[in-house]
């Protein structure tokens, strides 16, 4: 039996969606209502630059740095990373750092896949796509990828890649004006009428299809409906606004999340993180990123949420990288790939002021108790899959349904 379509659920017609109202409840945000903003440092960040201050041991630490601490979170501090210190001082109580995370890989591709899906199979779906496709509500762009990796597996229909540029041109129709043989932009009322005809046709196809073809027809209908709704709401979404900085993109992403247009967003953290030849850019890149996070959270604190007074209390920020870097500098002043990394999660439902996981003086991980996050000789070597299970739980999903046999990193959760 065909499942209800988005269109039926929303009770919309082609013209009715021209002005969809936003319905805001007065309920407290539940895990299923939380939104997620993912930041990803492609290339492999050096965890000793911020998350794992290991002085006096076997790690080549950046010059002129020392160990700082705020809200119980130790971090690498120094005059060239004031933004890092400011972030932990202001937001450390909402922040959980995860260290000694096994990525099971020393390759970028495989590490990315492990960190984002917990496994190696192409059929696995990454955390943001899972959260977006299984979360509450019905959104036109469930997971929007501004930049950075996406591994949707079989759930590609909920992912929209490219938060600017060509996507904006497609959504607002201006792409037809820049062609060598252009056409006038089809104005919205007429565009919506054409949409209506196409949606009806797709619905007929959906009703007559079964099996895999039925699933594909349903995905196609879903995509059409999402595209239609996105066109109608493009002004609200601020898709026209362009901005090149990480903060611009992050703010645009949080606006999409606030408006209920998306549940998850992915943004690549700028910079060259794969520092085989010269490790020095890592420090300034981290500092710039943390300064951006600080400004972003400032904005979230004064932005009304959907179900909570502040967006700050609805939005979870997840910061990842696919690899760590070796403790020691190589002959070229760079650091090579290391299979253990760190992550950081900020926001509602997170056990703030806490460091979960452990590594020794040489950045080798120790086994931990997943409930407390503290070292335990009889514990578990912390893997990306445990972190993923915790993120799914944070978003109201049942991790057991998606990661069979994987224990949840409960220590991350408040």
């Amino acid at each position, binding site marked *: 039996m065909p499942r209800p379509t988005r269109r039926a659920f929303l009770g919309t017609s082609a013209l009715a969606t021209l002005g969809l109202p936003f319905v805001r409840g007065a309920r407290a945000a539940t895990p299923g209502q939380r939104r997620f903003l993912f930041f990803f440092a492609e290339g492999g960040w050096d965890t000793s630059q911020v998350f794992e201050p290991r002085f006096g041991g076997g790690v080549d630490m950046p010059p002129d740095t020392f160990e700082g601490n705020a809200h119980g979170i130790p971090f690498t501090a120094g005059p060239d990373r004031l933004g890092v210190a400011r972030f932990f001082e202001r937001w450390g109580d909402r922040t959980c750092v995860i260290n000694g995370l*096994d990525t*099971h*890989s*020393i*390759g*970028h*591709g*495989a590490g990315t896949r*492990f960190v984002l899906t917990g496994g*190696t199979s192409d059929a696995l779906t990454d955390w943001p796509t899972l959260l977006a496709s299984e979360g509450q509500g019905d959104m*036109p*762009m469930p997971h929007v990828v501004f930049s950075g990796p*996406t591994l*949707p597996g079989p759930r*590609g*229909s909920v*992912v*929209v890649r*490219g938060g600017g*540029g*060509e*996507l904006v041109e*497609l959504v607002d*129709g201006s*792409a*037809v004006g*820049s*062609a*060598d*043989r252009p*056409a006038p932009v089809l*104005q919205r009322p*007429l565009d919506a009428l054409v949409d209506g*005809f*196409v949606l009806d046709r*797709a619905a007929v196809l959906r009703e*007559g299809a079964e*099996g*895999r*073809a039925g699933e*594909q*027809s349903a*995905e*196609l209908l879903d*995509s*059409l409906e999402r*595209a239609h709704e*996105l066109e109608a709401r493009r002004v609200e979404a601020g898709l026209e606004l362009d901005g090149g900085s990480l903060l611009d993109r992050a703010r645009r992403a949080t606006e999409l999340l606030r408006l209920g247009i998306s549940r998850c967003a992915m943004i690549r953290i700028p910079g060259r993180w794969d520092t*085989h*030849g010269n490790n020095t850019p890592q420090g300034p890149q981290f500092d710039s990123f943390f300064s951006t996070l600080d400004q972003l959270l400032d904005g979230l604190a004064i932005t009304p949420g959907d179900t909570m007074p502040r967006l700050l209390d609805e939005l979870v920020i997840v910061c990842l990288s696919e690899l760590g870097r070796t*403790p020691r500098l190589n*002959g*070229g002043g*760079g650091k090579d790939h290391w299979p*253990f990394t760190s992550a950081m999660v900020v926001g509602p439902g997170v056990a703030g002021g806490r460091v979960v996981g452990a590594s*020794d003086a*040489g950045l*080798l*991980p120790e086994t931990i108790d997943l409930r407390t996050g503290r070292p335990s000789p009889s514990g578990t*070597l912390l893997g990306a899959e445990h972190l993923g299970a915790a993120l799914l739980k944070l978003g109201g999903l049942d991790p057991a349904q998606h990661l069979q046999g994987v224990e949840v990193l409960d220590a991350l959760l408040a």
Partner: protein
Amino acid sequence: MIALLLLLVGCAPSPGPTELPARAQLLRASLDLRGVPPLDVDLDAIEDEPELYADFVERWLHDPRFGERVRVIFDMRYRMRTGRTDLEAEEFGLEQSELAASLADMPLRLLSHVAEADLPFTDILTADYAIADPSAAAVLGLGLSRPGWHPARWLDERPAAGVLASSSLWMRYPSTGGNANRARANALARILLCDDYLQRPLSFRPNALEDNADPEVAIAEQPGCRLCHASLDPLAAHLFGFWSESDDDPIPLYRPEREERWRDYADLPPSWFDERTTGLAELGERIADDPRFARCTVRAVAEGLLQREIPDPLELEHHAEAFVDSGLRLRSVFRSILLSPEYGELGAEDPEDDARRGWKLVDPAQLGARIEALTGYRWTRDEVDLLTAHGSRMASLAGGTDALAGSKPNWTPSVARVLVQERLAWLSAWHAVGADLEGEGPGLLDRIETGQRPEDEPALFALQCRRILERVRGVPLPGDSDEPEALVQLWKQAWSMTGSERSAWSAVLAAALRDPQLLLY
């Protein structure tokens, strides 16, 4: 599913087999082998005589456009078509995109040349020539000036090793100093053997790595590292003839004096499974003799044609046998798959098979070709084809391979894909209608004349809308379909909003061109 099939051919649902209708299967074959839809006359012929299907497949395997489909499918593995090159094209008097495209296609052209010439596919590993065009030849000193792609001899002393000796492949896959060609070796293993070292799960235990160990020492001594490096590093050692000493050395030309540089890095000599080799030419032969190469080739074609991951070699055994029986001619793999039951089915009794057998989604080039066949319109910007240009973001949004990011094609419907179809439908409708109203178009408006109105000619308008739908979908519309009347109503509303005949007919045609079936095949 049956209901859908019958709906498409204009019949009422009833129990029956799950084979694709003959017209739909012919469309599938044509798009896969030539990248364009069949002619109406061919569709009519197959409907009359479905047994002609194998003949069409054979004919289209020898179509001049078959080579490009080979290149498209293999680029899913080679990931050459990034649209970028680090070289300064101006230095060679070329456009940047032109040079990038020429260099990217060199290895792919060798593949398609071997396939079209019906040579053993192992020739891609042993050929003593390259396939180049004048742009690539100018950069790599191949001494070729006539236009087009042709076999060309390397003028240096490089070994006869086909793609393994392709400078453009090593431009795409560079190696940093400390990496010592390992990334290149892994690219070979991934592309040619379907064995991606970086996809191997590693389980580093804390005690497996000595504190502060030099990575090169760990690679050489630690069992967990040696598991991969014992075979990867000797493979990498074959590639030092293409070693670049610095960033000032951007073109990896062959330099025989660098062959021995492996001694400065991993210090493992070139070998294949513990047997020392004489160099790159022998490596090509060893890979060609490895059964994994044939299996990987079959897998690449099957995954491209069937649009799903097929890691289980047993599932491909039949096609692999056909490949071997043919003396490793690539056409045999295409033929075997296109004539297999799975290819022609839209479902199956067995639930596992049923989950695999659905619609295929057109890639950006196929979408562009389908629209062009109907309207004569191609979507270009600054004379760049947005749906076929290497590295095109629009093509990536439409589900194409993103070679630079290493992402595979998206084989599921998506918001971006339907938005691309929507804008292309409008553009092509606007121009086709404009030309048709002036009597110079593709003939989609073949029943009405300028100035006619639906209030005066309701039957004529309904007939015209019916014919547009039938032309676009390639199948007759059920006699009682209400869609023509819906399009007439759309025409009226568009007319009332715009007062423009061209806008009204463009809206009608765009609605037809946005048919979901244009994305599925």
